[in-house]
């Protein structure tokens, strides 16, 4: 029962979600909506689990004075502070929006902005025409990089860039998408029919 129950449950829910697309039945429509509502509730609970897991991990690190425990203190303090101010003042008022606008937003934006520097350094080191394929990739990369900014239009390279994106890029992406789509369909059928049971954990 421990194994059969979840498989039967998975089969019923899977078939229900599938049937919704093929029948105008309001009963099936209502059950479909129930499943979607429950899915959101379960997702919300996973967020809470994530917060508890993050807290426990860093708290243990602080207790053990493990390497880098100082960073864990900042993480835990930030976590408690943000949750506390949101509960006391609500997320729309008080220190919560201020912390978001003046601490979280600038920090995240700064981290992402640093990528520009690392991308420049990494592309200088990695983009070397070692063989024909590397040279091809390098040429396409340079054309698209220039074609996607105003400078590319000025030197007339934008049409070549658009061609690369429209044809070789789209052809490759379509191939990947079809492969992924077929794989997802096969996996979904295997889960619904109970062939694929890894989601039940080890030994299922």
């Amino acid at each position, binding site marked *: 029962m421990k194994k059969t129950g979840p498989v039967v449950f998975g089969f019923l829910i899977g078939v229900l979600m599938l049937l919704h697309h093929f029948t105008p039945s309001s009963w099936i429509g209502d059950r479909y*909506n129930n499943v979607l509502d429950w*899915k959101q509730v379960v997702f919300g609970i996973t967020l809470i689990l994530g917060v508890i897991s993050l807290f426990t991990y860093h708290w243990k690190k602080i207790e053990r004075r493990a390497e880098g425990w100082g960073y864990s203190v900042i993480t835990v303090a930030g976590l408690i502070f943000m949750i506390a101010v949101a509960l006391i003042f609500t997320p729309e008022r008080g220190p919560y929006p201020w912390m978001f*606008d003046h601490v979280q937003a600038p920090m995240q934006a700064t981290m992402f902005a640093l990528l520009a520097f690392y991308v*420049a350094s990494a592309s200088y080191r990695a983009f070397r025409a070692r063989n024909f394929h590397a040279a091809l990739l390098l040429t396409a990369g340079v054309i698209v990089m220039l074609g996607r900014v105003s400078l590319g*239009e000025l030197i007339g390279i934008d049409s070549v860039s658009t061609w690369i994106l429209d044809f070789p890029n789209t052809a490759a992406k379509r191939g990947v998408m079809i492969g992924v789509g077929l794989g997802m369909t096969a996996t979904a059928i295997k889960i619904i029919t109970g062939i694929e049971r890894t989601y039940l954990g080890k030994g299922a």
Partner: protein
Amino acid sequence: MTTEARPSKTDAARPRRPLHDWLANVDRRVIFIAVAVATALPLIFPLNLPIKTSREARAYYDEIERLQPGDEMIFVFDYEPDLMAELDPMSIATLRHAFRKDIQVIALTDYPGGPGIAERILGEVAAEYGKTHGTDYVFLGYNPDYSATMLRMGESIQATFPTDHYHTPSSELPLLQEADRYAEVELLATVTGSALAEYWVIFAGGSYGQRIIAGNTAIQAVLIYPYFQTGQLSGFLGGLKGAAEYEKLIGTEGAGLRGMDAQSMAHLLIVCFIILGNIGFVLQRRYQRRLEREQDGGAKREQGDGVKR
């Protein structure tokens, strides 16, 4: 008592660094400084490089342009502060365009970090056009689980979001009484730096036939070309250039247009460094081959001498 003279740096017998070595191994600090200068200078001294409108941006603009005053549009802030620099200009321009045409906007976000961005932008642009929350626009906030949210909104927006971001029951929001499912909304626009544009196409477009336009980061834009070609995506903006093109189309200068010169210079600089690196790489390879040939020649000569003796 004599002291030994310390060799000065200039006196030291340091081999001169060959050009190929210098070109192939530029110090990364030099690259960092160059990028900083190339980005900052055009912001201080704008170059006003020309901007041509792409067909994707034109299609994005046309989709909003064809809406009539009073029509409803869903706008999704699908990003967090890390992408503000690239995506905020798109969100601001889209909302300006919508509010200018008196289109009613139902805004939401699929990211926990999205509400802060959405509140700021909606507040600023709504104030600019004298729009009121509840009647002209609503902000529904963040809902966990994007896939369930996207699918559930096709059945009922009020059921998906029982309250808005400010805890007002959805049943009391006049705007949601007129539009409660995709079938009653003319257009959906998502601005994102992730695969969420694809998911909107699959869940809202595929399952409910919702018309969709998307604003994407330059990296992500490359991946959604197939959807635009098939018409599943009615238009899209790609990166800061897309934002700049759209700003030009709606006739307002924003951060997109202002940032294009800086981005152009940064890209040019990166390309220059790549070319320099490759010149260094080719010269280095030639140098190494020459060395190998010389060593081989020397070894053969020594072998030949040994045989003669």
